[in-house]
């Protein structure tokens, strides 16, 4: 029997799914038409399959994630639908229920949060509700696993809805829901809400809101970097040791340089790189998942929305951007919470501009080698990423405003996330990272090893300058002449950067003796870093973008835009560097000052013009004389 779970977001549907199918059970991933759908077997009866569909508010929707539900129902015939309702917001939840009744599929309504209602002394008469709706209704607590067996039992004997509400217009529907809920409820005020209100006085308070949000972002970031970083160091050291020991071992047993290289520098190194990031990703996700499940992230979006709307984005973009600072793949995957298609595309486009963990590693390497380990290098590149993202959003041509785009943010009651729920989400997200990013990085590591150690005559035996990679590098180096690094080493390292950003360090350390000699001056070197920051992202990210965008044209456009942006910014930096070097510094500052004054002037004039325009009413030309 196939049972499908449908309900509003935040109705506890996922908790129900987790507790019906077993928290640690492997989740099957069935490919839906557009997105992977979660499905698993009911743990007490393996002949029953439970399918969790994304939470939604309306069946006939323009939003991608909500369309999936209708598509699924059209292409598959589930035996029963369990409609999960939020007992604390019954009136709101019943909107969807009435639409589900119209589908004429056997339906059982599970009113969730029975435990909360009980605690507040609220009673709801589900028998009466069943009679009014014409479908079976029962109360459950997904969290406390209460009444779940009865729920499944009811599904086995569920019938198609007894009546239809089609003839009711919207006003009548609302009236019906309002009256019905009033009839079946005793005692209407929920105390839980009072606690949420109290907490929100600080979290979204006028003076404390922004502070709390900023602090939480900083905390999130530092926790994942520092705490995660400690474990990352251990893993990195472990793998270095492993590679050295394995290398000597293989040589000792007569394996030869090629075999040893392939295993240690290709495979083991690749695995090591993937695992090195894992602790940071894990730490990031632990905090983020708790924030998400408790309802805190809605408040973050609420506080920051104003700032993001200046760039045609919404507060929901904050999470993907934060995640992208860990690993862009995870950031892009999290854009699924953004409902508007155009906004989601923009968010996906700017995620790669954030310095991800791999890029930071590259920046640190260069900072150490060329800039005396200065912290300013990485810090300034963060700002550069943010500025470029902001400009990108502003410059992006606004296509005519899509119909049906109204920003509505749900602010659920604060709830303590269940431990099992958090663990399950964590496991899923880690799987995403390992499978999506990990396999690609591993593959790339082996590939780079092959290309940098072989050429047409075979193994290169330590003379890397003859390898495929180097030969190719000598062809493409001319592209980068205007940027100040016209040499095979720098160019080919950038190329390997398309495969995986960490490879840049590897390739450079493999084929170049003195990194300093690759650049004409420090500006050009910084421009190189800016190029790495803004250039098309690693293959793992590109493949994730491909899956999320579902539109090859958009994908190619984004990649080309990124290349163009990276090139332009690096060019400007190099140009600035040349001016400073070959001319008097004062002249340079003079030019900059003039440019800034002009910009300010223009801005000022624009503001004045706008003010005048609003004072004078627009006079419509007379159509008749």
């Amino acid at each position, binding site marked *: 029997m196939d049972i499908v779970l449908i309900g509003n977001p935040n109705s506890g549907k996922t908790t129900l799914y987790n507790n019906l199918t077993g928290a640690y059970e492997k989740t099957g991933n069935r490919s839906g038409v557009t997105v992977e759908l979660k499905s698993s077997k009911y743990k007490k009866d393996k002949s029953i399959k439970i399918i969790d569909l994304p939470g939604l508010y309306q069946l006939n929707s323009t939003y991608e994630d909500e369309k999936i539900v209708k598509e699924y129902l059209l292409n598959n015939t589930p035996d029963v639908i369990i409609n999960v309702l939020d007992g604390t*917001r019954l009136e709101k939840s019943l909107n969807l229920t009435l639409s589900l009744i119209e589908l004429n599929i056997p339906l059982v309504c599970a009113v969730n949060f029975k435990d909360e209602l009980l605690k507040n002394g609220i009673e709801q008469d589900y028998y009466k509700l069943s009679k009014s709706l014409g479908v079976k209704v029962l109360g459950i607590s997904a969290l406390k696993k209460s009444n779940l067996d009865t729920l499944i039992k009811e599904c086995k004997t569920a019938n198609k809805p007894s009546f239809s509400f089609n003839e009711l217009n*919207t006003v009548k529907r609302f009236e019906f829901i309002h009256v019905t809920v009033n009839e079946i409820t005793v005692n209407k005020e929920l105390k839980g809400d009072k606690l949420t209100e109290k907490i929100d006085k600080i979290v979204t308070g006028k003076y404390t809101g*922004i502070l709390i949000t900023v602090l939480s972002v900083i905390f999130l970031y530092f926790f994942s970097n520092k705490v995660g970083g400690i474990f990352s160091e251990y893993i990195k050291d472990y793998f270095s040791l492993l590679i050295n020991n394995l290398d000597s071992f293989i040589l000792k047993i007569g394996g030869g340089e090629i075999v040893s290289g392939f295993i240690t520098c290709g495979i083991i190194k690749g695995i090591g790189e993937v695992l090195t990031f894992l602790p940071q990703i894990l730490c990031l996700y632990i905090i983020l998942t708790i924030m998400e499940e408790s309802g805190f992230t809605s408040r973050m979006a609420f506080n920051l*929305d*104003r700032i993001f709307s200046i760039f045609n984005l919404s507060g929901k973009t904050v999470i993907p951007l934060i995640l992208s600072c860990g690993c862009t793949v995870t950031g892009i995957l999290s854009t699924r919470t953004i409902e508007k298609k155009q906004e989601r595309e923009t968010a996906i486009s700017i995620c790669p501009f954030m310095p991800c963990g791999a890029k930071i590693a590259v920046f640190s390497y260069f900072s150490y080698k060329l800039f005396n380990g200065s912290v300013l290098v990485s810090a300034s590149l963060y700002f550069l990423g943010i500025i470029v993202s902001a400009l990108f959003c502003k410059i992006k041509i606004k296509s005519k405003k899509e119909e*049906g785009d109204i920003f*509505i943010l749900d602010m659920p009651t604060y709830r303590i996330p269940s431990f099992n729920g958090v663990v399950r989400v964590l496991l899923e997200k880690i799987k995403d990272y390992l499978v999506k990013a990990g396999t690609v990085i591993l593959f790339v590591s082996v590939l780079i090893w092959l290309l940098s150690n072989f050429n047409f005559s075979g193994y290169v035996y330590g003379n890397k300058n003859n390898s495929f990679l180097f030969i190719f590098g000598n062809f493409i180096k001319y592209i980068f002449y205007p940027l100040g690094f016209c040499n095979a080493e720098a160019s080919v390292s950038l190329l390997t950067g398309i495969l995986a950003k960490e490879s840049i360090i590897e390739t450079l350390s493999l084929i170049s003796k003195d990194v300093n000699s690759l650049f004409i001056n420090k500006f050009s070197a910084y421009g190189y870093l800016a190029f790495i920051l803004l250039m098309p992202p690693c293959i793992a990210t590109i493949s994730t973008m491909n899956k999320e965008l579902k539109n090859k044209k958009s994908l190619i456009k984004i990649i080309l835009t990124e290349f163009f942006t990276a090139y332009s910014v690096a060019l400007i930096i190099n140009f600035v560097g040349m001016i400073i070097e070959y001319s008097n510094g004062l002249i340079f500052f003079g030019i900059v000052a003039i440019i800034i004054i002009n910009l300010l002037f223009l801005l000022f004039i624009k503001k004045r013009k706008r003010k005048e325009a609003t004072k004078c009413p627009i006079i419509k030309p007379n159509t008749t004389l």
Partner: protein
Amino acid sequence: MTLNELKENKKAKIIKINLNKNQIDRLISMGIYINTEVVLVKKAPLNNPIEIKIKNSNLALRVEDAIKIEVQYI
């Protein structure tokens, strides 16, 4: 009077919505329509969006959209 002009915690009722069909459908799916009781909870720290309480659940709307929803105190 429009939704964003409400005083905090004073009950009001929606009397007219001046948005396009898709936007109205979205509002309906969230339980917002004519005759629905609404209360302004607070404005965001930067005065946009605004948090409202409808049918025992809290939602946030942008001022640009709230300004198109006409209300009157009950």
